[in-house]
């Protein structure tokens, strides 16, 4: 249920509060249920406190004051820790948009328990704070820490229920955090937390193949709809929690019929007139087959047309790239000084894939290019798990398509001859076009072959063409007519006789034959 069609329903459904954390609102289908309590459970370091603060920060930024109840860290610590996310809590407090209820334990005060008690004072304080700033949002961090402050666990349980119902009667939307000991174990440590709140969300920070992978899952939303399953998220400075809602991204893709140049006239012809403007092309080949050249041509073609191009290079340094380009006769430095090219070089292992996705999205948003090339995807393949890698590619592909940017990714195949790569087999369905670059061994010589394997929505040349690399880039030659098994990685020379006779007729019609010396035997 979205907010839009609320009016048309007979039964009043649970209203949702747009949190302002845009990506969260997507998976929560509009936001958190309004005037209800939502439990955020996660292991240590899963981002609960950041989430709890961000929930308030996003509210304050859209004019909804908030109250932060802390049982764990002191208010002073939280103010300090949250500064790196760009949230100036002290300023908001001064403006009356935020107030703390500091219930963190004070180690300097000795407390003796002498008889039955309740947490009436805490509830009175929260109520007071909510009234003081006219809060619409409350975050409580964390429920588990309440247990550790008192010896009477049964009392704490009862009181937590009372707090939850008090929050509801205050008319606020609340987020309560809770610890869990295991990413895939019970919802929360004390076994009651999930019953206290109406809704439950789980933050995970699982270790898979030596890399950390953060995910968020909405486990239950009482009485309203949400997206199911785990969604990757990342926590970045000056942004906090950013959820990557994969399914939502795929839905919003457009499709364009405008053709643009690949930067190589022959390649354009093979692709039936060029790439589509919002398409993503995968260039796959072994090392040295000409992937970086294909990318360089693609960027040159964009710049020559006055389009802004972004190159994300994970394999070679900027200097190497510039030198390569110069060797082929392309002037990257001029393109850069003209403001038509930005080269971003970095080590792929520097951060996780979720972070890369967010970083790249930010660069694209800042630079606003018409073309984006990534060389190579394979370098990112080992940064995270296969699943994370796939999500990265889906995320990036849909992001650039959504902005009608033309994309080109490269993938390195493992073996020199033929074969495919993990990258290729995992993402080939996500890309619109695939160009294969292959070595072809012929009579003791390595030749290079190129074929357009797939071109979504367009006819294309099916031949495997030989090409040479020189000044000016790729020189496309004639197809390998008398060789079979190139793509399979086992090229076999076929006696020219029969093959040649069949093709000669065909050639006359559609091929510009250029005199080429037969390989001498």
């Amino acid at each position, binding site marked *: 249920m979205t907010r839009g069609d609320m009016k048309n329903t007979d039964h009043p459904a649970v209203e949702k509060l747009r949190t302002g954390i845009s990506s969260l609102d997507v998976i929560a289908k509009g936001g958190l249920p309004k005037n209800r309590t939502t439990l955020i459970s996660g292991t240590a370091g899963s981002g609960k406190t950041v989430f709890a603060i961000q929930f308030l920060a996003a509210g304050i930024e859209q004019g909804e004051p908030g109250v932060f109840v802390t049982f764990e860290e002191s208010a002073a610590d939280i103010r300090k820790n949250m500064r790196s996310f760009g949230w100036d809590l002290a300023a908001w407090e001064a403006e009356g948009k935020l107030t703390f*209820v*500091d*219930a963190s334990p*004070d180690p300097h*005060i*000795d*407390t*003796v*328990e*002498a*008889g*039955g*008690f*309740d*947490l*009436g*004072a*805490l509830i*009175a*304080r929260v*109520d*007071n*704070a909510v009234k003081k700033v006219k809060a619409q949002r409350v975050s409580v961090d964390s429920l588990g820490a309440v247990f550790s*402050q*008192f010896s009477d666990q049964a009392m704490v349980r009862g009181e937590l229920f009372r707090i939850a119902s008090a929050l509801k009667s205050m008319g606020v939307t609340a987020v309560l955090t809770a610890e869990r000991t295991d990413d895939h174990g019970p919802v929360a440590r004390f076994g009651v937390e999930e019953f206290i709140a109406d809704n439950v969300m789980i933050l995970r920070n699982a270790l898979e193949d030596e890399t950390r992978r953060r995910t968020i899952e909405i486990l239950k939303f009482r009485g309203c709809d949400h997206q199911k399953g785990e969604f990757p998220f990342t926590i970045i400075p000056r942004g906090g929690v950013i959820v990557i809602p994969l399914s939502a991204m795929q839905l919003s893709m457009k499709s364009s019929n405008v053709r643009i140049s690949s930067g190589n006239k022959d390649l354009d012809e093979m692709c039936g007139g060029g790439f589509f403007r919002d398409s993503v092309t995968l260039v796959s080949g072994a090392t040295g087959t000409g992937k970086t050249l294909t990318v360089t041509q693609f960027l040159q073609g964009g710049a020559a047309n006055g389009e802004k191009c972004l190159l994300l290079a994970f394999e070679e340094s900027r200097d190497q790239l510039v030198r390569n380009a110069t060797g082929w006769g392309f002037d990257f430095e001029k393109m850069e000084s003209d403001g038509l090219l930005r080269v971003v070089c970095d080590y792929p292992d520097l951060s996780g894939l979720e972070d890369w996705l967010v970083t790249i999205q930010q660069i694209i948003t800042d630079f606003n290019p018409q073309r984006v090339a990534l060389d190579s995807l394979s370098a990112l393949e080992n940064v995270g798990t296969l699943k994370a890698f796939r999500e990265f590619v889906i995320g990036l592909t849909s992001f650039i398509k959504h902005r009608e940017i033309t994309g080109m990714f490269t993938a390195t195949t493992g073996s020199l001859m033929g074969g495919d790569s993990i990258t290729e087999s995992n993402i080939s369905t996500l890309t619109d076009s695939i160009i294969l670059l292959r070595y072809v061994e012929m009579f003791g010589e390595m030749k290079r072959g190129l074929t357009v394997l797939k071109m979504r929505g367009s006819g294309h040349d099916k031949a495997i063409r030989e090409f040479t690399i020189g000044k000016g880039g790729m020189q496309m030659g004639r197809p390998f007519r008398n060789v079979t098994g190139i793509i399979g990685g086992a090229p076999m020379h076929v006696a020219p006789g029969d093959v040649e006779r069949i093709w000669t007729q065909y050639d006359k019609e559609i091929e510009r034959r250029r005199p080429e010396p037969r390989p001498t035997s």
Partner: protein
Amino acid sequence: MEGRLSKYLLTLYVTGTSPRTKIAIENLNRICKQELEGRYELEIVDVLENPQRAEDEKILATPTLIKQLPPPLRRVIGDLSDQEKVLLGLEVRPGSSKPSATI
């Protein structure tokens, strides 16, 4: 002798007029009468009427008894039905106000 005669400054934080509040006040009055007769000052704060006081003192539980004087600051939470613990918390030796009291 100095310590024995020093003044006790006590504040009891309660929530409204709940049964627990009544029990706590009764217990405290009894204990004070027995042990601190004539040398204590007691203030009772209802957190529902005065939540800011609870905020300033960072009180979570009610009832909470705070001993401000003599130092050190001490807190006792609960309805004060466990007299031994209350005295322990307040650092009052039982019977100290009546040296000849029967123990």
